[in-house]
């Protein structure tokens, strides 16, 4: 997403993954590659090398209460290389 809350155009037409379509490892974890060049597995293509905004949305979750926020592990974002 752009910083203004609008989705980013990309030739593959892929702007998001949801929990039922994302490819997972055997233990249920998953990894999504965000890059300009195609990647195997879950690939979220971007057409820019500028700033991007990643949004994780959780629906119907007890977490929204905020009481247990310390116990949850948020997904890690790692820079794997420069293109």
């Amino acid at each position, binding site marked *: 997403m752009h910083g*203004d809350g*609008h989705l980013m155009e990309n030739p593959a037409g892929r*702007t998001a993954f949801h929990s039922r379509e994302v490819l997972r490892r055997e233990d249920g974890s998953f990894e999504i590659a965000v890059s300009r060049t195609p990647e195997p597995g879950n690939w979220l293509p971007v057409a820019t090398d500028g700033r991007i905004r990643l949004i994780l949305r959780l*629906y119907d979750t007890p977490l929204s209460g905020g009481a247990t926020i310390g116990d949850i592990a948020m997904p890690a974002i790692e820079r794997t290389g420069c293109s």
Partner: protein
Amino acid sequence: MIRLLLYALGGLLLGGIIHIATVLLLPDFANRDAWTSLGRFGQDGRFHVLPMAEPGTEALPYLDPEMAYAACRFSLENGPVRIKAAMPDDFWSIAVFNRRGSNVYSLNDRTAERADLDLVITTPVQMAQLRENPIAALNQSIVIEVPITRGFALIRSFVADPTLVGRTEAMLRAADCSAGLPTADSPLPADPDEKS
């Protein structure tokens, strides 16, 4: 000299008051907010299905591309608003926002514990009237009280696969934002689903 200082102080105070009042009123005059954007979809009192969020053509910022949205602006000035809709099996939610876009109520498929939606939105005064003169036909409805007179309802419906967009949007288009509210005086209609 003292008079001049007093005038200066008075002017400063007046300026401060006007400044604070302007800042506080600003949201009501903003025309790029959700309320105004949703008004472009058509008349109030009915649901309008927002086009699926795609790059460049989103109706509102920060829409989830995996969700289908329908929104309805309503007013409680002429009585409670009743929303009825048949909903898909997948996740859905309905949220009520005030004029400024702050969330005042929300419900989803799991908390509703039923597949269809029958929500009656009232002001505190209308709620008190409903408590005094209960309407039997609303026994199965979810009746909520909100501290607003104008606002909008937003239905989110999860679209697990692009092939389901058509079906989900058809259900959202059929959602009724101004379903009739039975009067307390009218005889109870025979409801085959009702278990006594």
